[in-house]
């Protein structure tokens, strides 16, 4: 019937509530007014009844014939008092008096013909009462001797006034309801307008305008907090998309450079006949370019695998210290060739991990350290257990890494020193792969460095092992090649 919107729901509930409150208020007011009006009439009538009673049994006693022939006595009302009941104006007061035996004793001129005796009390006790007959209100009293005095009058005027009052109340309530509904509609619109803004912003974002944000006016309102939470989510999404797009652009850039080398070398060689030495040079350059391409695609593929599925890990119990010793042993010849001392401080550090992948992390870090440590330097490998973590760390006495590079060091294609890394053949993916492996293990890979003094890379693997689900951050980064 109505649109299923929050605004309509608020409006309908608000309308119901307002109508109920107004109806209750109007009914109560009406009834109070009616009761107090009746009470006023009753008090007035009972006063008249007392006037009659005074006339019969007042301190001066009945005026008229002696009381001896009570039964035959005429009811006598002094003219001043009788005049109260003879008014011709609209008040229309009348009285009827019955004797103890129920026969009518006296009645005023204006009394209607059909006034009956009120029901007599069982015991002979004084009784007062009021009754309504149509548009007449009557008050009566049974005197101690047993006569019944009744005074009545028309309350048509009061009833009409009351009806008028009722209509007035209804009209006022209706008006208040209308104003209330209008104000409620406005409030509901005001309250739900941010929802509309949120929806339209979310739509624009869905259409690709990722930098759009919901304007937040009141930070602490519910919708303000929702908007803030959504904005944070949007910012993360945008950052994730930007990272993805940057990664794709970087990957394309890195892939194009070796292709450009191969193409330029080959095209130049083909422009005319060359001597054997030139052809050899050209082919060497082409091979070099192809190797770079190959390394790059391997690295990209590796990253894609970690991004796509964390369960590719071949988990088992292994010792970080043992893996480090084996890995380092393979690189010892290279270290001694470069006159770099390797020293070990390896305690058993058992954990659940993919030993092959962890060895790759250690190998990458160690190769990095060897590349960045001058001759005569020292590289120290440590392992051990700290509370619930198996820890491996590698420290070098190399050139260190500037603090401006540290936050982005594990980013894909990030090179702390462009020229040097390019010539050592790295595309800036080695540490990114290490990070991806660490992430897949729910482990932490950290770096601390002092420029000029050396760097320390630390791998912390939780001893409790690897949880089942892949971390959400990796899914967002997933690479499509």
């Amino acid at each position, binding site marked *: 019937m109505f649109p299923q919107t929050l605004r309509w729901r608020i409006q309908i509930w608000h309308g119901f509530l307002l109508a109920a409150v107004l109806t209750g208020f109007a009914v109560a007011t009406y009834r109070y007014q009616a009761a107090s009006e009746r009470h006023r009439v009753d008090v007035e009538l009972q006063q008249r009844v007392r006037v009659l009673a005074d006339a019969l049994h007042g301190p001066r006693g009945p005026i008229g014939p002696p009381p001896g022939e009570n039964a035959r006595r005429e009811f006598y009302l002094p003219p001043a008092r009788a005049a109260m009941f003879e008014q011709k104006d609209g008040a229309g007061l009348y009285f009827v008096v019955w004797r103890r035996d129920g026969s009518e004793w006296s009645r005023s001129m204006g009394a209607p013909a059909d006034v009956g005796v009120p029901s007599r009390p069982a015991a002979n006790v004084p009784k007062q009462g009021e009754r309504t007959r149509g548009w007449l209100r009557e008050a009566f009293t049974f005197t101690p001797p047993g006569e019944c005095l009744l005074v009545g009058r028309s309350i048509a005027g009061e009833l009409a006034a009351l009806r008028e009052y009722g209509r007035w109340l209804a009209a006022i309530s209706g008006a208040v309801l209308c104003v209330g509904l209008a104000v409620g509609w406005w409030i509901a619109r005001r309250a739900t307008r941010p929802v509309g803004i949120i929806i339209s912003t979310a739509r624009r974002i869905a259409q690709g305008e990722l930098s759009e944000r919901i304007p937040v006016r009141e930070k602490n309102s519910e919708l303000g907090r929702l908007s803030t939470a959504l904005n944070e989510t949007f910012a993360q999404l945008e950052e994730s998309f930007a990272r993805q797009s940057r990664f794709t652009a970087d990957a394309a*850039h890195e892939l194009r450079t070796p*292709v450009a*080398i191969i193409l330029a070398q080959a*095209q*130049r060689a083909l*422009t005319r006949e060359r001597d054997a030495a030139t052809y050899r040079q050209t082919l060497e350059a082409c091979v070099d370019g192809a190797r770079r391409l190959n390394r790059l695609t391997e690295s990209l593929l590796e990253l894609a695998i970690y991004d796509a599925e964390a369960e590719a890990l071949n988990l088992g119990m292994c010792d970080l210290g043992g893996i480090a010793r084996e890995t380092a042993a393979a690189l010892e010849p290279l270290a001694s060739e470069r006159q770099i001392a390797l020293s070990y401080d390896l305690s058993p550090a058992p954990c659940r991990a993919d030993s092959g992948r962890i060895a790759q992390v250690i190998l990458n870090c160690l190769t990095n350290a060897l590349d960045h440590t001058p001759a005569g330097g020292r590289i120290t490998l440590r392992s051990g257990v700290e509370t619930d973590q198996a820890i491996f760390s590698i420290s070098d006495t190399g050139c260190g890494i500037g603090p401006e590079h540290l936050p982005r060091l594990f980013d894909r294609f990030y090179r702390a020193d462009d020229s040097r890394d*390019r010539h050592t053949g790295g595309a800036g993916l080695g540490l990114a792969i290490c990070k991806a492996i660490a992430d897949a293990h729910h482990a932490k890979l950290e770096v601390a460095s002092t420029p000029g003094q050396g760097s320390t890379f630390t791998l912390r693997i939780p001893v409790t092992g690897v949880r089942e689900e892949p971390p959400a951050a990796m899914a967002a980064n997933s690479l499509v090649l």
Partner: protein
Amino acid sequence: MRLLIVEDEPYLLSSLAEALREDGYAVDGASDGEGGLAKALLCDYDAIILDVMLPGMDGLAVLERLRRRKKTPVLMLTARTRTPDRVRGLDSGADDYLAKPYELPELLARVRALIRRGAGNATVALKIGDVTVDLAGHTVTQGGEPVALTAREIALIEYLAQHQGRVVTREQLYEHLFDENEDSFSNLLDVHVSNVRKKLGHEFIVTRRGLGYCIE
């Protein structure tokens, strides 16, 4: 014509430089931004081929600093090919933009176009009497007949022809015909001038004593 290539990839630098030298250009190379900028400011190149991704100062920074002082035509080379990258490159003062990997013939053609526009010529064929200099094909014909010339001799004719009617000093010729590795105090220039005169007639290149050479 003398060119500067700023490219950090040694294989690309060498192959590009060789290809351009074979096309008759004098070519200098620089492998980083600072070195490239220093050379570009020191010498009046006919065109500069500038890689965007350079260690240290990147290509855009080099271009921005260069443009404060010089109007040398610049061809930007980059592997970043998204539209915003190209727009940024052109807006920061590049005259042309070529994406890596590039086709060598296209790069050569773009370099020729840059030099031609830099010298203020719209056409590729320049006529001096009955001699026609084809800037695109790097050939010279006399009365419709091709004249056999070396690359360096053609470069000399092209440079003088592009400054037709103006006197070109010996220093200018040395600066634009020989690269940084050649001895500019040799009499190599006189040898080339005399060879051209032998092939196209003595009056083709006029000597303005104490000033330089001129093609009228």
